[in-house]
């Protein structure tokens, strides 16, 4: 198990080196190409504990755009074609004020027609709040800048502003499907319980409002602390559940999970939910292993379907099932995966979305027919935004993505992956 870890580590370092090269080479290329270029600006967490998010997304975005440019760039309004250019990829450190700073910087000091960020749902929530809420609302002095995000996954964020768009999986459908499938696959599994990290908005809300209800919906029986209000509908009994199950929840930075695990073990569920980021998910899983909890099924949060989980607790995570918006199952996905890992990143559900976003931008630009000159930036942004809103579907890496212009949300295909022998394996493909 350690051995694998070693290889992984060494691979990181190699790839990191290549990444630096790739980026340094890519930048001048993008700059020099043609007199006109369609500018985009990206940002994410490139420092702080969530560094990997930013690094992976940047690698994906840059490689995808390089690929697009290699294939001739994008068509402009006047029929000519121009390359896409990543003005820069900023580090927002997952901080609200820095995200807002970068947004305003992008909007006011660059010709970028779309901002592609950012890591951390809380930061996005703040950032979206700075945007103009309704298009063309003169009384609203919010920033008018289209944002296309790959990582702000907390439910229902894009509705904050009509300028905000996301390309994140629809977790409600994703988990609904997951438990329907698990139900049919494992008739023996009846009861379930589990916990989440209460200081991370996304994990917390997804667990208590979506995942648990979805499990209930498909006939699994909640054996945690009794919550009579719990029901099959999204958010049904959410507050009661949050209150009742607080003694089996944890925090992202926790080091001791003995009480939580003991409580869950005592309930002896067939299926255990660990709705948490790798940092604490690993701690929790390891504690479960120590206390020899013997569940039949182990279900995780989509954010944990990443390399970090394997780095953290390969063996303890064995058998962990997670629905995710990405897996190298289609030719496109496989090749994208190779390209991005050459660029020093890993393709997971977030960075894959970043890759898709590059192509989404291409489609929207060509639909909008922008002129990409420095004096038409404002109207280009507006055109781009409307085009983006009008797109009802694109080809994602693992299948068609349908978009809803009104809410700015996407509904992506997804697959179910499981940790098998220390690797992510696709165990079911509902597409």
């Amino acid at each position: 198990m350690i051995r694998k870890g070693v290889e992984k580590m060494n691979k990181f370092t190699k790839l990191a080196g290549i990444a630096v090269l790739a980026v340094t080479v890519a930048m001048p290329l993008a700059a020099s190409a043609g007199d006109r270029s369609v500018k985009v600006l990206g940002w994410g967490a490139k420092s702080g504990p969530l560094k990997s998010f930013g690094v992976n997304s940047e690698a994906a975005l840059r490689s995808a755009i390089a690929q697009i440019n290699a294939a001739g760039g994008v068509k402009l309004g006047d029929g000519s074609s121009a390359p896409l250019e990543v003005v820069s990829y900023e580090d927002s450190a997952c901080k609200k004020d820095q995200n807002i700073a970068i947004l305003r910087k992008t909007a006011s000091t660059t010709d970028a027609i779309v901002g592609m960020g950012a890591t951390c749902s809380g930061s996005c929530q703040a950032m979206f709040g700075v945007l103009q809420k309704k298009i063309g609302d003169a009384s609203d002095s919010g920033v008018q800048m289209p944002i296309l995000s790959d990582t702000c996954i907390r439910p229902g964020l894009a509705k904050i502003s009509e300028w905000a768009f996301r390309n994140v999986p629809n977790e409600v459908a994703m988990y609904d499907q997951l438990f329907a499938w698990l139900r049919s696959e494992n008739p023996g599994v009846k009861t379930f319980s589990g916990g989440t990290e209460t200081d991370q908005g996304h994990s917390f809300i997804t667990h208590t409002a979506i995942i648990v209800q979805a499990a209930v919906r498909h006939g699994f029986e909640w054996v945690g602390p009794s919550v009579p209000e719990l029901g099959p509908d999204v958010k049904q009994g959410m507050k009661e559940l949050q209150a009742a199950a607080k003694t089996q929840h944890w925090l992202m930075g926790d080091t001791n999970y003995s009480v939580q695990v003991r409580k869950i073990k005592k309930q002896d569920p067939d299926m255990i939910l660990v709705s948490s980021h790798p940092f604490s998910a690993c701690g929790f899983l390891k504690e479960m292993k120590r206390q020899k909890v013997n569940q039949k099924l182990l279900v995780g949060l989509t954010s944990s379907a990443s390399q970090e989980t394997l780095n953290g607790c390969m063996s303890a995570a064995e058998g962990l099932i997670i629905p995710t918006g990405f897996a190298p199952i289609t030719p496109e996905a496989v090749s994208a995966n190779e390209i991005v890992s050459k660029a020093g990143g890993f393709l997971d559900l977030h960075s894959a979305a970043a890759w898709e976003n590059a192509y989404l931008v291409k489609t929207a630009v060509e639909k909008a027919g922008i002129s990409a000159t420095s004096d038409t930036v404002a109207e280009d942004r507006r055109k781009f935004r409307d085009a983006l809103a009008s797109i009802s579907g694109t080809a994602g890496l693992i299948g068609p993505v349908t978009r809803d212009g009104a809410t700015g949300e996407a509904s992506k295909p997804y697959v179910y992956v499981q940790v098998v022998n220390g690797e992510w394996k696709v165990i079911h493909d509902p597409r």
Partner: protein
Amino acid sequence: MDDFWFEFVEITQSVGDGFLFGSTYALIGIGFTLIFGAMGKLNIAYAATAIAGAYSSLAVFMLFDVSLVIIFIVSAICSAILGYLVYLACFRFIPVHNHLAALMASVGGLFFIDEGIVHATRGSPLNFPSMFSEAYFEVGPYGIRGDLLFVFFIGLISTGVLLYVLFRTRLGLATRAVAQQDVAARLCGMSIHSTNSTTFAVAGLLGGIAGAMTAAAVGILSPVMMLPLTIKGLIVTVIGGLGSIPGAIIAGLFVGSFENVVMYFRGIDERDMYVVALLFIFLVFRPNGLFGKTITRD
């Protein structure tokens, strides 16, 4: 009656786990205490050096396959070196009586170490080999984690060694002399700086063990552990009474079990609030902590 018995078992179990886990807090607390005792200053970067030590030992472990004992030693040594570097960077060249500057510098050190680790690992949590995690003794209704027991004993041993060094050796004598009367000590021809740097190194050794122990007990290393550990360590130091090693140990074990009990009854959202409240209670009723002595100078 039956479920009462059950509850009782569960509660005592939680207390036990917390108690064992508290030994990591205790070690961090001792580190703060040592440095405070020697210089009257707070080295905020201390817990960070501890974790950093564990990280570097992990790197060693990944490069060549070594036994767990080695890991602890490596971690201790690395953290000792880091501790010394922190001393050089944040304390050595700052005027002795300028506490604010030293405090701020050590904060800078914390940021630097934290971000440095993130930079090296992309912030990804890393698997830390937990020694005999299979050893899980079932004593009647109770379960005792072998590795936590081990952690606890390592904690005891290192503390014992530390106390011996402090009260039975010349170095310890010097340290305590400097701590009590640095001017007088200087007059006796002791070099404040060498004494202080050794103190930092010794504290670092301890921190390295604490870091490795925490990592082993959790099973992973991640940068998000750093800040909570720092805060817990500080709380433990104050509850134990600034500058009192036995105080720090007892406070550490106590806080560990206390927070577990609160966790058991009140849940995660209130756990830390109660720990903080505990600190306030101490500050109100025992402003000098468990073993703190009132220092009166005119």
